């Protein structure tokens, strides 16, 4: 599979608790202060690739950095370090403000979690879908209307709904507007940030099937962020598991869920309610995650919460190692590998 998006060593750091105020900054310049201010390592040295036509899932609990990573990939925020290469174009070099006017802006688009929040309440469905077409494809008048109609039809949105405002649409219809807006400019990569989280299960089915159809018809790749592992299992070819800013496991979705190798993934899979299982598996995570502020680079991020913690886990950060198609960042990965 040819690689569409290559993410290499991407990091994003934020000043902790908003950072020093204006006066504190001025003071620092004259009086001086500690060399390094405390920083939150939201995303820490993340590398992965998305192939053409592939659907990659991204899972992890809140605070693991997936929102930040996704915003960095879609160039809504800038990275602190690393490269993001789309095709043959390196994207991270330009700042996000400048990138809004870039010719490649349309190649990565995003579908947001809550379509009610992500569509301007004062825009009709038509205007919401037309906005990127006006800005990025410079369409006007009849050409614009035709394109919007086509996209709306592709996304199962009846034409008479185009003149409605978001609050006049049902949850499923709003989700379709969000999708139509994103695919209208025919992106190469579509990032979906929990697109069905707010929807009823019956509506979710329809939307997921629509997404799969669109992917085939328009030849896109997907990065599907979700906390619902059952959905990720159905929709994604491969999956990335994040914890506290790092990727701890990666591999084909079916295999990762059937035989998770990293202790965190194991706990995650054990926690998902299954229709035909009891809540028997007692693999439970206790406590809270470690602080993401200036974490010790030599200690595994999962140490302390991990059911198995050894001296080694405190001494060296486990690297993401490859085992065939699987990648795991754990010193004990070999123990869990499925026997050949």
């Amino acid at each position, binding site marked *: 599979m040819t690689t569409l998006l290559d993410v290499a060593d991407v990091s994003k750091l934020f000043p902790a608790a908003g950072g020093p105020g*204006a006066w504190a900054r001025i003071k620092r310049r004259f009086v001086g202060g500690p060399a390094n201010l405390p920083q939150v390592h939201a995303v820490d040295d993340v590398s992965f690739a998305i192939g053409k036509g592939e659907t990659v899932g991204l899972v992890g609990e809140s605070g693991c950095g997936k929102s930040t990573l996704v*915003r960095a990939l*879609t160039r*809504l925020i800038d990275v602190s370090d690393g490269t993001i290469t789309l095709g043959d174009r390196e994207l991270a070099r330009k700042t*996000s*403000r400048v990138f*809004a*006017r870039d010719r490649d*802006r*349309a190649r990565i*688009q*995003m579908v*947001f*979690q*809550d379509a009610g*929040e*992500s*569509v*301007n*309440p*004062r*825009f*009709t469905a*038509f*205007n919401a879908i037309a*906005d*990127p077409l006006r*800005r*990025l494809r410079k369409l006007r008048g*009849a050409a614009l*209307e*035709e394109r919007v*109609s086509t996209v709306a*039809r592709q996304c199962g949105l009846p*034409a*008479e709904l*185009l*003149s409605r*405002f978001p*609050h*006049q649409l049902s949850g499923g219809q709003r989700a379709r507007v*969000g999708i139509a*807006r*994103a695919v209208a400019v025919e992106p190469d990569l579509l990032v979906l940030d929990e697109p069905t989280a707010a929807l009823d299960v019956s509506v979710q089915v329809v939307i997921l099937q629509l997404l799969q159809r669109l992917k085939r018809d328009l030849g896109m790749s997907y990065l599907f962020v979700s906390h619902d592992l059952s959905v990720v299992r159905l929709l994604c070819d491969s999956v990335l598991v994040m914890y506290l800013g790092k990727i701890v496991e990666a591999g084909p979705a079916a295999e990762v869920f059937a035989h998770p190798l990293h202790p965190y993934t194991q706990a995650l899979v054990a926690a998902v309610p299954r229709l035909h299982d009891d809540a028997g598996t007692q693999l439970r995570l206790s406590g809270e995650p470690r602080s993401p502020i200036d974490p010790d680079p030599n200690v595994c991020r999962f140490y302390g919460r991990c059911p198995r913690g050894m001296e080694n886990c405190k001494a060296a950060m486990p690297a993401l190692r490859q085992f065939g198609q699987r990648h795991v960042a754990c010193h004990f990965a070999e123990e869990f590998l499925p026997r050949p």
Partner: protein
Amino acid sequence: MTDITANTATRRGGGAAALLRHARYVIGENPITGLSFGLFLLIVIAALVGPWIVPYNPLASDTSAALKPPSVAHWFGTDQLGRDIFSRVVAATQLDFAIAVLSVVLVFLIGGLAGVAAGFFGGWTDRVVSRIADTIMAFPLFVLAMGIVAALGNTVQNIILATAIINFPLYARVARAEANIRREAGFVEAARLSGNSEWRILAFHILPNVFPILVVQMSLTMGYAILNAAGLSFIGLGVRAPTPEWGIMVAEGAANIISGEWWVAFFPGAALMIAVFCFNLLGDGMRDIVDPRRRT
């Protein structure tokens, strides 16, 4: 599929036609809104054509008919110079209404836009705008208005300017808060993904959302602006005689209350009260019309 060439207006939300239909629905729904709209219309008509349809010339004095109580010939009676009070009250509508509208538009422009920019961009824009607002709020507002008019001169333009300045902090604060809430909203991020520059987002995505809230504020400020102008005129800092203006008329008639000629101050005062009351009621009705979330 419906015809693509069908009415564009329908797709754009119906435009003016739908707005009018919704307006009629809202007005019909709530009798108080209907009443305030009717009153508002009356005031607008009086402002537009008042000076030309009144029975007497507002400036013509006839000292022989001075201080006559309300009668068939003079509905509101006459003042000390024999001028017909009814004609003066109606004629004054134009001036007071103009002052109200112009002050409000001015403060919406400077205050609203400054506040939205401060809330959206943050940083130094926010600091500068907020400190300006704080400085203005440090003064008792009416005293500040007095000071501005006294310093710049007794003209209608300066009254408008002074009113706008003393209302600046309110608009800036409200606009800043609303813009700040929406700064990281999903639709703003979506707008960035769609290739909008920050200024476009401010103008076309944020401002239309802040506008309804400011509109309610504008209606309330109109009432306050009239009271402000009337207050300034009352103490001699506003419009000068013989121009008919409700504030001056109340001031001129105040002394006569003691001697029993209540009508000289009463009718302009009642007009003031009704106008302010009407503008206040208007605020709620306006928001119901303008806010698309309430459209059903």
